[in-house]
């Protein structure tokens, strides 16, 4: 919300457009208006390629998006990236105003939350792998519920005997939890470096004698509730 965008427009694009695509591409501010209109109108994320398809020839929605993201970052409505798509979402700090809009959701069972977390952090993951982590069978009802909520979907089959089907999280999952990608899951890095996202112990011989540094860090990490900052 400053004169920044205009500056960068001048630098990056307007010259190009004027010379090369004078009668083709709309001006950069126009392109921004178009991206704005399309994203505001849609309740689900819109991909860059879909934006491109809907905008006039020669448009560069990716560039317009970058600018808009900055402009909206301080507003009551923000431009957020969700997987491959972009969406307008109200700022989370204003949730107290939205009691009227709040949708009452059913509380998920512990099994469902754990299963969802395992799928999100281990994806793509087979049912058997989920069961191994939890030490107990995964009920059909739990998987069905998560599928029905459109939080998980079937991924590619594993190239292991039986070619079991895998589960992955959906774009709607990312959208629901305000994640740009599955890589932004809280604590993912720490879990990964601690080897806790492996299906087997990273190094059996070593762990038998002494726990290595990373694992010790993790355990401390887990005991200390982390503040999540976005």
């Amino acid at each position: 919300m400053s004169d920044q965008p205009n500056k960068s427009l001048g630098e990056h694009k307007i010259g190009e457009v004027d010379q090369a695509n004078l009668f083709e591409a709309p001006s950069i501010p126009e392109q921004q208006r178009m991206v704005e209109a399309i994203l505001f109108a849609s309740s689900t994320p819109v991909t860059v390629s879909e934006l491109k398809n809907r905008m006039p020839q020669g448009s560069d929605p990716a560039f317009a998006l970058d600018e808009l993201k900055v402009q909206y970052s301080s507003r009551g409505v923000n431009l957020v990236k969700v997987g491959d798509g972009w969406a307008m979402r109200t700022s989370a700090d204003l949730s107290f105003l939205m009691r009227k809009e709040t949708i009452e959701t059913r509380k998920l069972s512990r099994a469902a939350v754990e299963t969802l977390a395992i799928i999100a952090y281990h994806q793509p993951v087979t049912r058997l792998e989920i069961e191994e982590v939890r030490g107990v069978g995964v009920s059909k009802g739990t998987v069905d519920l998560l599928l029905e909520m459109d939080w998980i979907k079937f991924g590619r089959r594993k190239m292991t005997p039986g070619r079991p089907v895998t589960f992955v999280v959906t774009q709607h999952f990312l959208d629901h939890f305000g994640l740009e990608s599955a890589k932004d899951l809280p604590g993912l890095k720490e879990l990964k470096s601690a080897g806790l996202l492996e299906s087997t112990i990273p190094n059996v011989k070593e762990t038998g004698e002494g726990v290595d540094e990373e694992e010790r860090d993790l355990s401390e990490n887990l005991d200390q509730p982390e503040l999540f900052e976005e």
Partner: protein
Amino acid sequence: MSNTPNLEFFPENDYIAENSPESLVVNVDGFEGALDMLLTLSRTQKVDLLKISISQLASQYLDFVAKAKELRIELAADYLVMAAWLAFLKSRLLLPADPNDDGPTGEELSAILAFRLERLQAMRNAGAKLIARNQLGKDFFSRGIPEALEKKRTINYTLSLLDLMQGYARIRTRDDFRPFSADRESVFTMESALERMQELLGFSGDWNDLMSFLPEEWQNEPKRVRAATAATFAATLELVKSGAVELRQTETFAKIELRKRTTE
């Protein structure tokens, strides 16, 4: 090892419900399987997971299973599998390692169990963190009045010159058979002739010329006479077939005569 597990220590009070004086039913629903129970048991050691004594944990668990048996508590299969595995682990930890044995050492087995407990705990924490995040429809919102994408369908009709020509050729060809549909006025149908004959026969028992059965208004124009004659003749044949009428013709091109058949 003095830490003999007391069944009452389990978190929920309703964990064990008295069913009958002789048998206790363990509410295993409170736990998500044997691993979950081990994780819960490990918390009683009040140390962090990595410093936990696996051998102590194994003993706790085995004592629990033994007590359950003593009390005739039915345990799910996976609890018993875990018990067997832990018994094996304990024996490995107690006995000196056999240099000829290629199997995992007690320490390795312990590490595996510790890893599984850690991993489960980590996923449990991750799930809690996930659910604690801001959520769509609860903490942040999408557009309340989304504007639908109006789908406009443009239909592009294809037509080649060949299609056009074939279409025209089809109509012109059809013209050859047009009398069937076009010349309704000069068509006397067999159905109406049959209807008419049935009425007239009621009054006549003698031989009568077929031509006398033609309606008056059909006797002037040759085209109409032909049509009425054909229809009436066809109707007559139909009546002969059903046994209502007799038909005769004395010679070629002579008059065709008919009369009502009398039942004898």
